[in-house]
């Protein structure tokens, strides 16, 4: 039996396909590999937010560091009620709030403008520090990818999170093993990412990023953990959900043809 979260994710994959097809460009592969993580955060009861009051001071913060997978975040935010679903049609359009890479000032619900890789984790660390200074209870979630760990700045952020014992920060790594020009193992091997995080001093969890029971367990244990930040390294599949896209680096970026779109939508029925 399909669970509620699985049902939401399946319907959002269809939205994302249509969005990128309409826009004529966009990143489907990473949007699909990270979608289940996003759905679990927003609809699994972990992220505290008010879509009618997007700047509510006590809200949890969700920072998308690898900004190019924003079609997934846009689809999630629309479903969560931050803006009408109708607007999804305008991805990457002139004067649309749904910019090609997310813009905080263009769209309520976006916590951080991102695009250049490596910066979002630092911003998330800054937010978590602010909560600590104010002794506020809100939590910061930061979605990043395995390839984003090519950026040295990620490791600067990692060290700072450990130094300041940011147990109000959870990093989600979408480990889909793929980047723009090919396999992560060939472009820049990351080695044992979990061992790296462990040695830096993180509470380190490894899960299957497409199993909601594992994602929810990970998020729950991250929230319980104290005096250390948590990383959830989620093994995922690029293009997850559409058979002919799964694991194919070519789907990192680019729209489906009309024929591919209808085949993909049929698979997701």
């Amino acid at each position, binding site marked *: 039996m399909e669970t509620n979260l699985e049902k939401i994710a399946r319907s959002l994959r269809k939205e994302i396909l249509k969005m990128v097809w309409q826009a004529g460009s966009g990143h489907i592969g990473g949007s699909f590999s990270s979608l289940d993580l996003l759905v679990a955060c927003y609809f699994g009861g972990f992220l505290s937010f008010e879509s009618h009051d997007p700047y509510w001071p006590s809200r949890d913060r969700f920072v998308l560091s690898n900004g190019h997978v924003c079609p997934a975040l846009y689809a999630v935010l629309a479903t969560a009620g931050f803006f009408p679903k109708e607007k999804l049609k305008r991805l990457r359009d002139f004067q649309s709030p749904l910019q090609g890479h997310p813009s905080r000032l263009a769209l309520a619900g976006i916590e951080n403008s991102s695009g250049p890789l490596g*910066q979002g984790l630092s*911003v998330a660390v800054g*937010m978590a520090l602010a909560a600590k*200074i104010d002794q506020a209870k809100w939590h910061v979630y930061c979605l990043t990818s395995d390839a984003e760990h090519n950026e040295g*700045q990620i490791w*600067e952020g990692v060290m700072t999170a450990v130094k300041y014992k940011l147990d109000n920060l959870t990093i989600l790594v979408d480990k889909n093993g793929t980047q723009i020009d090919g396999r992560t193992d060939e472009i820049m091997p990351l080695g044992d990412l979990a061992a790296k995080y462990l040695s830096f001093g993180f509470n380190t969890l490894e899960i299957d990023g497409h199993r909601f029971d594992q994602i929810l367990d990970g998020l729950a244990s991250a929230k319980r953990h104290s005096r250390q930040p948590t990383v959830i390294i989620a093994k995922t599949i690029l293009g997850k959900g559409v058979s002919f896209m799964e694991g194919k680096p070519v789907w990192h970026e680019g729209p489906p043809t009309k024929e591919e779109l209808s085949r993909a939508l049929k698979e997701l029925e």
Partner: protein
Amino acid sequence: MIKTKLKSTRDGFGEALVKLAKKEKKIVVVDADLKTSLRLVDFSQKYPERFIEVGVAEQNMMGVAAGLAMSGKIVFATSFACFSPAINWNNIRISVCYNHANVKIVGSHAGLATGPDGASHQALEDISLMRVLPGMVILAPSDFDQAFALTILAARHKGPVYLRLTRPTTAKIVADNKNLKIGGSQILRKGRRITFLSYGPVLAEVLKAASKVDGEVINCYSLKPIDQETILASCRRTGRVITIEDHSIFGGLGSAVAEILIQSLPLPLRMIGIDDQFGESSRDFLDLWEKHGLTSQKIAAVAGKMLR
């Protein structure tokens, strides 16, 4: 004779910040292992919970600053001008400016005035890097008191500000700091024959030069936005303009003034600054100023040539 203790713009910054933080609880400092040089030891001891030390990691520092600012803090992110803005320019571009985060970027040890450390540590292009960023305000104080006043002004402004600080101690250069504002300037000396536009500690040399040639001296402490009205009014009266800066002539005050004049008041303009070169070490930075035409005699010579 009363002996007054000489102080630097970075001293003015450090002291202002301690004073500010007492009343304004939102002030937070992010430091990249330069708290002694940036005169932040006092702040770090008085307000340890609001002093974030990220180590030698200027990119992360700027992202952390943006995150703090977007959570309601007034953030001062501090380093040397040769590292910040430079190593972390894209973090300033996207995480700070594109987010319109309330971050004050403080770059100290700017210009040749940094002296013995040599070219790698003499930021000569920081203003160029910052001028091109949408919404960025650029302030450059000339002495201790002005740095104190501009630090407070920067904190009150909502949005990104770059504060350019310098290493050497100087005597007081500017008499009055009461009416400083973003987009403002100060006429430090009235004159009729030539308009001298400058900022920072080199103004001491400019004032000496101007006195020899009946020059008007304007302190353009707000480099962006720049006080077009005052600059144009003065240039219209004198008919001749010289810009003087301890910075590259590409993209700094000279360029900003050229952009204004060429569009509304084309006049003879000379730019004194560093001309497509790196700096170098010198135990006395005045040797470097002399080499690049930034001493009063060299400035007066350029003015004299213009007047002939």
